[in-house]
């Protein structure tokens, strides 16, 4: 504390210093908001002129990659299949894990800390490594690049994200709830699926949406595992297109018309993500009022 000055001149100096620092910090803060607005503006400015009904209602035609007829319906549908499938598969794993941590292992602090640490490691693994791991799995199980392989890879990638968010919601349940439930003679299954999951429902929905948003926007993990096709997949063993990959491939084309389509596709993807963000906001503010 000896650095704090006492005389009035140094007092004035430190007040000046505070003003300057405050100014720099304010600039940094507003610049983040500005960068965000600028980004949305650029994507809209480039994307909207290239957008047409044909783009979102047709699959690629014969000369699509040379700037002729067709659209990216295959990629939109493919992305929806992949992320809905991935989210569903992931929920089958993430709901029980989060419940297990908060009910069965509630008082085993060492074990839960260890598992949460492993989950954090998983959360930090980049999606390209999940893609590579999915590829290794494909070699081991003799799978082809297909919708199924993509769904499995995506599920692995988003499960840590969903568990982490759902786990946080479950940790918000008041202490003593579990003891109260045991005292009423409920079994652990009943506590899990009739009490805890209802209490944490807003958190679960938010977690699911976050995972879904991540799944729909991720390109790196499905790069190896889904293949790419101009057609809408008919079953789980067909290769599948996805929206991020469509953007990526079209942007690397030398033909300007094709690149413009990439901007339009990026705009569509941004709108989808913005809508999901909005939904998450709505859920957290609306649903939390039903909690105890």
């Amino acid at each position, binding site marked *: 504390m000896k*650095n*704090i000055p006492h005389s009035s001149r140094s007092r004035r100096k*430190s007040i000046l210093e505070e003003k300057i620092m*405050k100014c720099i*910090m*304010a600039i*940094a*803060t507003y*610049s*983040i*908001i500005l960068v965000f607005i600028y*980004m949305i503006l*650029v*994507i809209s400015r*480039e994307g909207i002129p290239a957008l047409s009904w044909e783009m979102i209602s047709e699959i690629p035609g014969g000369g699509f990659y040379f700037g002729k007829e067709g659209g990216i319906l295959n990629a939109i549908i493919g992305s929806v299949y992949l992320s809905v499938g991935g989210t569903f598969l992931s929920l*089958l*794993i993430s709901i*029980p*894990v989060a419940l*297990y941590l908060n009910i*069965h292992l509630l008082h085993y602090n060492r074990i839960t800390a260890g*598992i949460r640490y*492993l989950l*954090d*490691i*998983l959360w*930090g*693994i*980049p*999606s*390209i*490594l999940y*893609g*590579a791991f999915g*590829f*290794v799995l494909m*070699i081991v199980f003799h799978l082809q690049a297909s919708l199924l392989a993509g769904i499995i890879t995506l599920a692995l990638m988003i*499960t840590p994200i969903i*568990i982490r968010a759902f786990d946080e919601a479950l940790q918000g349940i008041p202490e003593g709830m579990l003891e109260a439930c045991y005292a009423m003679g409920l*079994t*652990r*299954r009943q506590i899990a699926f009739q009490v805890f999951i209802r209490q944490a429902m807003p958190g679960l929905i938010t977690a699911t949406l*976050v995972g879904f948003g*991540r799944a729909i*926007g*991720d*390109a*790196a993990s499905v*790069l*190896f595992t889904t293949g790419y096709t101009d057609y809408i997949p008919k079953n789980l063993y067909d290769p599948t297109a996805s929206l*991020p990959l469509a*953007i*990526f491939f079209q942007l690397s084309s030398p033909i300007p018309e094709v690149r413009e389509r990439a901007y339009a596709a*990026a705009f569509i*993807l941004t709108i989808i*993500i*913005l809508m999901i*963000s909005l939904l*998450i*906001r709505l859920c957290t503010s609306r649903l939390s009022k039903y909690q105890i």
Partner: protein
Amino acid sequence: MNRGKWFDLLSDNWMLLATLLMSILPLSVGFGLLIESMPLLRQYHLRHLVSSSAWSPAEGKFGMISFITGTLWVTGLSLCMAAPVSLLVSIYITQYAKPWLMRTIHLVMDILAGIPSVVYGVWGVLVIVPWISQKLAPALGYSSSGYCVLSGGIVLAVMSIPYILHLQIEIFRTIPIELKEISLSLGATYWETIKYVLLKQARRGIIASVGLGISKALGETIAVLMVVGNVPQIPENMFQAGYPLPALIANNYGEMMSIPHYLSALMFAGLILFLIICLFNSISHWIIHKMHQT
């Protein structure tokens, strides 16, 4: 046993199984990558692989050093931009800002964190690349195509700021308010309190948040891939193209089956990335864990 008992048993085992599955997943990712890169490691010496710069899969040369330096350049540059900015912002909005600004930043942060990597890439190609090639590089006396490690760094900085910021806001919130009150009542100005009390308390947390930011930035693939140029060379300045590890893996998946050891080399690149990220993650989590204990 009645039906309820069966369901109890089913649910308990399902939960246990899922938890075990998730617990062994990090190990099996590392192990899977290791097994696939074994053929390469048997053929070449490990030291040779990570220190040689010769990259020519068709001739059987798999030197990784240019990809490692490319990764370091991009990550380092992005951190030099993201770390100070997020620290300034997190201090401002936890200590000075009005509630509406805080809400706005939270909203912006959430949306920025959700925007897919490929959209950042498109933005980088549209805005950052032309800006660097036409304005910044000539102004500093370099010539650049714009597809360089600096573009990758800028795009990554924008991508990783929401993550670092989120953690730092949490850390500043956990500091007890009494500490601030004591300092203020001793006659320190608000800024002095922040400088000498808050920053000192939060020091380790700030380091940890930057560590997590690093591991986030290291692995981002598509956005970097789109703007960084992808030339396998050791970049000498920030206006030269680089070729980070994730981009290497993503770019070559098409031809890797046809050349011997190519797949192994890519999986080895993945293994290096995995080990670096686990290291940074572990250190950061350890620091945060320590902070919560004291």
